[in-house]
């Protein structure tokens, strides 16, 4: 018997894969709903996402889509068209390789060569670029990773960049993030897997042959998959770990009278605190009774001040004609990313205990990284179960 602590996307993917191989799996979730930061709650007729932006970074071609297919879960993903636009000096420019100056591309290859023997932070490369390319790079980092260029090394960035070139841009799952979670839950239960909501794991003890979890009483398992991050996992074992910083972000959900973007891609915003926005109701009108625009802003420090800046910038870009449905901030114990992109820790926590999900991602963005991390974690766990 295998236990999964936390019914987030990583936990549910892992549970499904193991159940498919014939293992008995039990998932324990502390909150009253599954999906963690990759689902939505209905509010005033809109599917307000709990974290993610109702987008899958590499659409129907990426690692998550492939893993869902492997599990046998059917989710329709509408690939964004255009993939992205960049708002530069009041003009929307479709993001293609040819909009960037040749000089910037040459500098990229030069930095790539340097990175082979010297791993510098990305801001050194960013500051060597022309204003246009630099602004786009910063918006891209803010939108997709909630980080600034000084937070990541060129090598780590290149890993993510390669994935983006290989699989290309985003897609929107029909039914939003919640549809993916609902399908995973239904599929797991159809294979005999169990999900317990509002059941908190309060302790973890390990011996050579098994792992014990304190649920209502101590219960034995052959292996444990933790979907609650390294920090909480350690705390449940009575230990402490030193972690790199988390990444923080603010998400605004707006109701509009008329579509503003009028497409299914991302609008990256140049030289502002807000990094980008999407309008997912253009791909799936059932995600809201009206037009739903989501805006994402990374931030450091105090949320309230960042929100004031963000709202002012939204009015500059979108106008004043909107209803603000929700402002959600994510930091500290409920962040955008438990560990900044590029700094993720390994998937093996201890013998028989692996970590999946946010904080244990493979080399890719957000949920794509989660999908890669899950496969890595299960490979490791199989040594013991």
């Amino acid at each position: 018997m295998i236990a999964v602590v936390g019914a987030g996307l990583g936990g549910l993917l892992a549970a499904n894969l193991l159940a498919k191989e014939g293992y008995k799996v039990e998932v324990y979730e502390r909150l009253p709903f599954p999906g963690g930061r990759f689902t939505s709650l209905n509010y005033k007729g809109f599917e307000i996402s709990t974290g993610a932006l109702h987008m899958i970074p590499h659409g129907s071609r990426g690692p998550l889509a492939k893993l869902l297919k492997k599990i046998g879960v059917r989710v329709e993903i509408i690939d964004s068209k255009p993939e992205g636009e960049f708002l530069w000096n009041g003009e929307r420019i479709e993001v293609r390789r040819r909009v960037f100056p040749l000089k910037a591309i040459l500098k990229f290859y030069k930095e790539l060569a340097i990175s082979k023997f010297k791993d510098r932070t990305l801001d050194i490369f960013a500051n060597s670029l022309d204003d246009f390319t630099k602004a786009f790079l910063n918006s891209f980092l803010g939108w997709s990773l909630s980080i600034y260029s000084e937070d990541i090394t060129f090598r780590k960035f290149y890993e993510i960049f390669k994935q983006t070139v290989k699989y290309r841009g985003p897609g929107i799952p029909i039914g939003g993030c919640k549809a993916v979670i609902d399908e995973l839950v239904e599929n797991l239960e159809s294979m005999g897997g169990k999900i317990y909501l509002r059941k908190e794991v309060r302790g973890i003890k390990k011996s050579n042959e098994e792992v014990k979890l304190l649920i209502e009483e101590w219960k034995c398992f052959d292996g444990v998959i933790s979907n609650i991050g390294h920090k909480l996992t350690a705390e449940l074992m009575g230990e402490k770990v030193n972690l790199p910083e988390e990444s923080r972000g603010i998400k605004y959900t707006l109701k509009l009278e008329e579509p503003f973007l009028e497409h299914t891609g991302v609008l990256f915003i140049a030289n502002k605190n807000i990094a980008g926005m999407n309008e997912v109701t253009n791909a799936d009108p059932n995600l809201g009774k009206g037009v739903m625009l989501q805006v994402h802003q990374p931030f450091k420090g105090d949320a309230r001040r960042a929100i004031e800046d963000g709202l002012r910038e939204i009015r500059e870009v979108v106008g004043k004609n909107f209803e603000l449905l929700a402002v959600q901030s994510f930091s500290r114990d409920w962040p955008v990313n438990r560990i900044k992109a590029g700094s993720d820790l390994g998937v093996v926590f201890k013998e028989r205990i692996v970590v999946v999900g946010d904080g244990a991602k493979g080399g890719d963005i957000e949920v794509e990284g989660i999908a890669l991390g899950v496969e890595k974690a299960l490979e490791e766990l199989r040594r013991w179960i």
Partner: protein
Amino acid sequence: MRVEDHCVGCAYCMLVCKFEAIEVFGKAKINEEKCVKCLKCVIYCPVKAVKG
């Protein structure tokens, strides 16, 4: 009802409150006049910052 300092402002409490008693801008603020103490915000808070 009380919101502790470690509230991150994720607004799950606001989204599930049937009585529109919660506003969130960086931190949750509960309007005691509208609140009926159903405790839904307490069980949906992922960081256990809302106390009944």
